[in-house]
Each structure stands twice: as C-alpha cells, then as structure tokens.
C-alpha cells in the first residue's frame, strides 16, 4: 500500500476504531467481488461504518485524499456495481442494519441501508403490511443496494420498482455532506435521479420506504406447457384480457431441471416451460380473474395446472423460481446471468433467436424471465475449466443483448449496468446521450471519486481518474450540449 493510502487508513482507524478498518490482504480479498464473480478487484481498504456520520466522515477523508470509494451492501449485485476500486476504499454498509422507525398509520418505515430487504417485510408483516420490491435475492440483498440499483423483482409488473417505494433518502454527497432527498415538494426530483444511479452520485445512509398493505387475498398457479412458445402465448393472452397479475414468471426446461436439482420444487415432469401466475387483491376480483387465467392457460395448451392451496404450497412454487439463478450451479460449473428487456410481444421471436444462437455456438442457455414485462434472464452456461469456453459464453451473452436492442428493448431490466455492461451503453445511446448523463453525474461528483468506472464506457468529461481535479471545470465549454 502506498504512503497516501496508509495515511488514509490511519485516519479512518481514528474515526472508526481499528476493528472496523480492514487492511490485511487476506481479509481484503474476500471483498474482491460482489454477486458477479467474473469481475474482481481487491480494494486497498475496507471500512465497516455503524452510522451515517461515520460514512460522511469517511467520504470527507477520501475526498481530501483524492481516493476513490465504492459503497457495498450485502454484495449480491449481478452487474459488478459494487466492484471495489483497487486503489480505493470500499464502504460496506452491512453493519448499518437498524430499522429506525415503523410508522404504520403513515405507511412508511425508516431503515438504514444495510437492512436486508426481507427484514423490512418481516418487521411490518404483523401489522398487515410489506415492502413490495422483491428481488430473488430478497433474503439477503440490502435496501441500500436496492436503492442504488433500483431493483425490481417478480412482483414489479404490478407494484413497480424500488423507485416507486422510496419516499426519501438521506445521502452522503461526494462532498461529504449529509443531505435529505425527498419525493414530495416542488423543484427537481433529485430522489428520482438518485435512485438507480448505481452508487455513482453518493452513498445512501437512511431510507424512508413505502409500506404496502398485504392484499386481501393471493392466488398462485403453476401451469406447465410443452414449449416456451405455448407459455408465451398464454402470457400474451392474459395481458390482452386486461388482467394485471401481481407476477407472471416463466422458466424453461433447463432452468426447471436446475431448480429441481436444487430445491426439489417438484414441477410437472416433462414440461418444456412453466408459467407462474400470481394474482392478488380483493377477493371477488381475484376469484373472477383467476378463473379466467386458468382458462387462458388451458386454451394456450397447458397440460397441467396446479393451484397453491395455501401459503406453504405457494412458497414451494416460488422456491423453484427464486432459487433458479443459484440453482444453475447444480447443472453447470459456471454461468453468466444475463438481464435484458424486450417488448413483451417480441418474446416468441427473441426466444427463437436465442435458441438458434445456442444451437449455432453449442453454448447452453437456460431461460428464466419476468414474462409480464419482457424482462429476460438468460443464463449462459459454460465450463470454466475448458479453455475458451468463458469467452464463447460471453459472446453469446453479448449477442443476446444485441437481440434485445434490435427488438427495441434494453440492456438491463433490473440488475443495472455496473462495470459489466458499461461497454454496451454505446449500443443503446449516442455520445450526446452519454455526455448528458455524465453531466448529471458531474453535478454531484465533479472529482469522479464516487464509484468510478461504473455505468459509463469510457472516462469522459469530469473523468474517472482518481485524484483531485485541477484545471477547467468539466462543464466549461460544454454549453452546446444543453
């Protein structure tokens, strides 16, 4: 470690105590990646603050020393958004996990960023409420991470993303100031800018989340089809009928095989695709629509339909789906989780093209997706022990994103751009688009120290180079961009 970082580490120890500043190389390396292991970078220093004031002090120290920093929650992100900077500080919020306030009449709760998503629901469930965003990793992902990535989940079709459930955030700006951003009130919606900025505009230290009333009734069914096309037909028919399911999820044969191996979810044998449809709301409405969904599934060729009789059966149906990513580890030594979006109507065409890509390249692709909003999660399988296999898988994975763009979709639905997809940004956006985004970023972080190297493909404007900026302000001479 160079002298500048060593001196910074000493000052951080003074702020937090020696126990909460990690510089031992063996320990540091355990933080080298988040949920995406294909990108690794060992940070110079890891800090484990307990309070917002400590986070602010850490950021001030980093800013003074010109050292970049990255915030990390539970480390479950799938785009490398929390990939550490090799010469920087990793600010881990996993000890900031207090639920500070539960306001049931106001339908809100105030939590620290390290609080686990599902723990919010556990805390308010006795009052008949829950926290709606439900990424598959909800048992471990942190609310702070959800805010950074604007995480979705199976139920965002009806209930929206994290952005729709955050009412306010206290953040530490790259200047080291504690600032409150709120959704209501006049002026620019800076909260809207902040949520989903992937940790490039500051570090969240406190989040006011909206609590949603537990629906009066929930009905879940699992429908098995011979093929993905038949399942896709059912999805289109359900949406066309004006039903807005709480969730509508599809898995193909390969992902079913993986889930079966992992959690014995006992989906119907021989299914080429399964569809999970969940309806919630007032009892009479759900009952009527549920009957219609069943009929539409049958008309589309479902050969078996299972209706969850109780919460335990519902949990079992969901268990297969929610474990699917990690479960693929059972059928393949390594894999890439892709995240792309297409218009729902393009589903059959895109899936056929993915099939063809897979056949041409000999790379297996398992498909899991939020069918209702066209959010695909192709899992590209490979054996990392075979030379060149990873590269072939990367190529297929990239080609799938091209397919998404070609069909009018997006390179990410909910996992974020992070470090993994920054290179695809120019395929979706023009230079002017990217410059405009950069200028927003520079407004918050002119020195480019806050989670540098993420989202944007190449250092531009205010720059991604760590170090105290000298010379012209990045906005200078860029007026023509506005």
């Amino acid at each position: 470690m160079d002298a500048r970082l060593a001196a910074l580490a000493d000052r951080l120890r003074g702020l937090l105590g020696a126990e909460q500043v990690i510089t031992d190389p063996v320990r540091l390396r355990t933080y080298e990646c988040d949920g995406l292991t294909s990108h690794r970078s060992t940070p110079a220093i890891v800090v484990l603050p307990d309070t917002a004031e400590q986070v602010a002090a850490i950021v001030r120290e980093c800013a003074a020393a010109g050292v970049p920093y990255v915030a990390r929650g539970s480390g479950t992100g799938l785009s490398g958004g929390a990939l550490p900077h090799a010469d920087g500080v990793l600010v881990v919020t996993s000890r900031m996990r207090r639920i500070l306030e539960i306001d049931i009449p106001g339908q809100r709760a105030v939590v620290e960023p390290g609080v686990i998503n599902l723990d919010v629901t556990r805390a308010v469930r006795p009052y008949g409420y829950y926290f709606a965003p439900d990424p598959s990793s909800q048992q471990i992902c942190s609310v702070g991470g959800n805010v950074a990535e604007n995480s979705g989940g199976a139920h965002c079709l009806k209930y929206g993303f994290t952005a729709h459930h955050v009412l306010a955030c206290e953040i530490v700006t790259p200047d080291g100031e504690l600032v409150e951003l709120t959704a209501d009130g006049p002026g620019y919606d800076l909260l809207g800018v902040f949520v989903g900025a992937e940790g490039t505009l500051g570090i969240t230290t406190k989040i006011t989340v909206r609590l949603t009333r537990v629906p009066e009734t929930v009905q879940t069914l699992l429908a098995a089809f011979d093929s993905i096309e038949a399942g896709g037909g059912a999805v289109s028919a359900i949406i066309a009928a004006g039903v807005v399911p709480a969730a509508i999820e599809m898995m193909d044969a390969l992902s079913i095989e993986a889930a079966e191996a992992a959690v014995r979810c006992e989906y119907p044998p021989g299914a080429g695709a399964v569809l999970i449809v969940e309806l919630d709301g007032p009892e009479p409405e759900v009952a009527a629509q549920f009957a219609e969904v069943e009929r539409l599934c049958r008309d589309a060729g479902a050969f078996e339909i299972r209706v969850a009789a109780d919460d335990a059966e519902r949990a079992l149906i969901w268990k297969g789906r929610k474990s699917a990513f990690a479960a693929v580890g059972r059928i393949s030594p390594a894999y890439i989780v892709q995240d792309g979006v297409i218009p729902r109507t393009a589903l059959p065409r895109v899936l056929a093209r993915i099939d063809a890509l897979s056949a041409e390249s000999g790379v297996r692709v398992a498909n899991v997706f939020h069918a209702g909003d066209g959010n695909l999660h192709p899992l590209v399988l490979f054996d990392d022990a075979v030379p060149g296999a990873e590269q072939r898988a990367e190529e297929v994975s990239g080609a799938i994103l091209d397919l998404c763009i070609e069909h009018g979709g997006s390179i990410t639905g909910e996992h974020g751009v992070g470090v993994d997809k920054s290179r695809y940004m120019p395929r979706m956006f023009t230079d002017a688009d990217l410059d405009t985004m950069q200028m927003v970023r520079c407004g918050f972080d002119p020195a480019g120290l806050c989670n540098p190297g993420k989202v944007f493909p190449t250092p531009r404007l205010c720059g991604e180079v760590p170090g105290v900026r000298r010379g012209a302000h990045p906005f200078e001479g860029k007026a023509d961009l506005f």
Partner: protein
Amino acid sequence: MSDQDDLPKLLGDCVHCGFCLPTCPTYVLWGEEMDSPRGRIHLMQQHADGTSLSGPMVEHFDRCLGCMACVTSCPSGVQYDRLIEMTRAEVEREHPRSMKERAIRGLVFQLFPYRRRLRALRGPLRAYQKSGLDKLIRRSGVLERVSPSIAAMERLAPPLGKAPRLPERVAARGERRATVGMLTGCVQAEFFPGVNAATARVLAMEGCDVVIPPDQGCCGALSLHSGREDEARAFARRTVETFECVDVIVVNSAGCGSAMKEYRALLADDPAWSGRADALSAKTRDLAEFLVELGPRAERRPVPVTVAYHDACHLAHAQGVRTQPRTLLAGIPELTVREIAEPDVCCGSAGTYNLFQPEAAAELGDRKALNVAATEAELLVAANPGCSMQIATALRHHGAAIAVAHTAQVLDASLRGLGRDTLIPHTPRATT
C-alpha cells in the same frame, strides 16, 4: 476419492450468491464478509490457490460454529459441512497454535470424550456447587482472568444430581415392536443422566427392547467437528464395533447423531472399515426421528405446559429433523408448543465453540435467550445437551431462568402420567 481431490470441486460449487449470509450466526453478529460462509469459502479458495494459512485466516475458520445453517440455505448445494471439516483438519495439521490455545484444547479433548474422566469430575463439581463456592468464584471473576474458556466451562456446568446407572438391557412393555441400541453419550450420560433414563423408558413403553452396551465410548463428534480426524476415526471405529449387534441405533444427542451419520464419509477411504461405517450411518436415528417412524402406541396423558421448542443445529441443519420433535410434542394433550424467533440461528453452543470462542458464544446465547424469553414459555425443550446448557446459562444471566428439558423427558412425563411437576420445579423463581 480422497479429500484433496474433492476440494477444488467442492469449492467451485459456490457461486457467490450470498444466500447463506443471513443464516450465518457470525455474519448476523458482525456483518463481515470474512465471518460468513461465502467469505470463509473464499478464504479456503485463497489457501487452495497457494496462500499459506495465516493467523487471520485461521481466526475466521475458528469462529465458524459449524452449525450448518448455510448448508440448509444454499441453493447451489455447496457442501460446506465437508469443506469446514477438511479445512479444520488442515488447520490442525499445518497451523501452530499458541501455548495457551494448546493447553485449553488439550484439556477439552482429554476430558469431554471420556466418560470416566467426566464421572471423576462429578463428585468435586457437585461438592463445589453445593458449597456455594461457585457463586463466590463467579462474582470474583478470577476464572475469567485465568482463562475465559475455563470460566465458560464453569458457568455452563448444569446443577448436578444423582446419576443412576442404566442397565444393559431394558425390556419392552407389552408386545415388542423393535430392538434398538442406545447411545448414551459422554456429556449426556454424566451431566444429564435423567435424559438417558427417560429415553430408555420412553423407548420401552413404546414397545422397544433397548440394548445399552456398557462398554460404549465417545462417538467422536467433538473431535470430528474440530478437525481432529484421526482421533475421530478411532472413536468411530470403536462405536461401529460396539453397535454391530443391533439393527437400529437411537441417539438422543443431536451432535452425536449427526457425527454417526457422517461416519460413512469419515471412514470412506479405509477399505477395512468403509462398509461397516456405511452400515452404521444407515441405521443411526435421532430419537424423535425414530419414534415418528415407529408411530405412537403408548397412551399420551396430559402435560399442561407451554413449551418453546429449540432446533438444535445438528438436528435441524445437519440431520434435517425439524418436524418430528414438533409432531411428538404436539401429540401430548394439553401441551402448547411455541416457536422461537430466528429458529435457524445457532445458540452459540456448537460443540466446543462456547469453550473456545466464549465471547461470540455468549453474544449468540444472549440473542437466543431473548428470543426464548419472548415466547413466554414455561419450559424450553431441546434435543442436544450443549444447547440446553448454553441457553439455560444465558437465560439465567438475563434473570429469566427457565426450566429446560429434553424431548424424551417431556414424552416420559406424558407416558407415565406425571403431569408437569417433574418438568417444572416448584421452587419459586429467584428474586433479584
């Protein structure tokens, strides 16, 4: 296949998803990656890639309770149980321990697996408890200064009563339905003799001839779960030999049962013993598991008491036995079972953990005690002697003393029509 060949594959199973983190007791306590299963696997990988075992690395392995909650929560099927056992054996082989650590470990492993030595300790310990010296010593904090581990041992020792010897054979009541061998255990036998007596009675009342080999030794659980493989294998061979005379072995201590089910893997590389070990593992049953398989026959009489059932990690996570004890308890008229919050999080006992890592164990014990107290149950039921000692001590520390019993003792009270009196002491709670 030997362990070393297996290691890269076992490590490669982890996809770094983090689903294990919230179930790991040390991650729950400290929120640090290195003290989570995912982080420890990363450390193991570093070592496999050539980084030598360093002090910090070993510290994080030592802090793992071996509770196996992560095995339950892992969607990728990572065999963390095997990974940590292999790693601990490697630590034992490669990593020099300090003199103090060696002394404490020597004391524990020369004492607990040996019933005769434990028995020899009973007399002095009873006298010590009766004299009231224990309270004085605790107040003085002298043991804490000498060694926190010894202080933990002193604190955890349950109040000792008489220890009746069990006969070699207990005959079935009524028509015989099965003949079973019974493992009496080391700590269970000497510190909780009432549990073994109740187990034998319940089995007999349910129509089993119970064979209790008097020359049985330690099953090797403590050694196995601490990486002392050779010692564990020696204990395992002896236990295999002792119980070859029966078709089923009933075990009432979760840690022991789980170790015996692991003999299969432990002795897999030993051609002379692998088949015999495999047979033993296949016929080992936890008491609750066995009784549910057998089905109830004896009449259940009311035991009007509210109990909190505690899942021992080596029962729930290691053996997958969760519903059976609850089924048995629910079958007792007038008995109410309450669930304890955070059932998957270890109480901190974890075999020798509360002796070697007393601070972390005490934090976990406190957490569990608060959750148990919140149930407002009158009786805590657990199926592992280590858990019983740990949670009872933590509850006492919080001034919320609670009666503790093994599932066998509750069933025994029901089958014999003793009601609640044998389970809940009449003495009023100590006032502070």
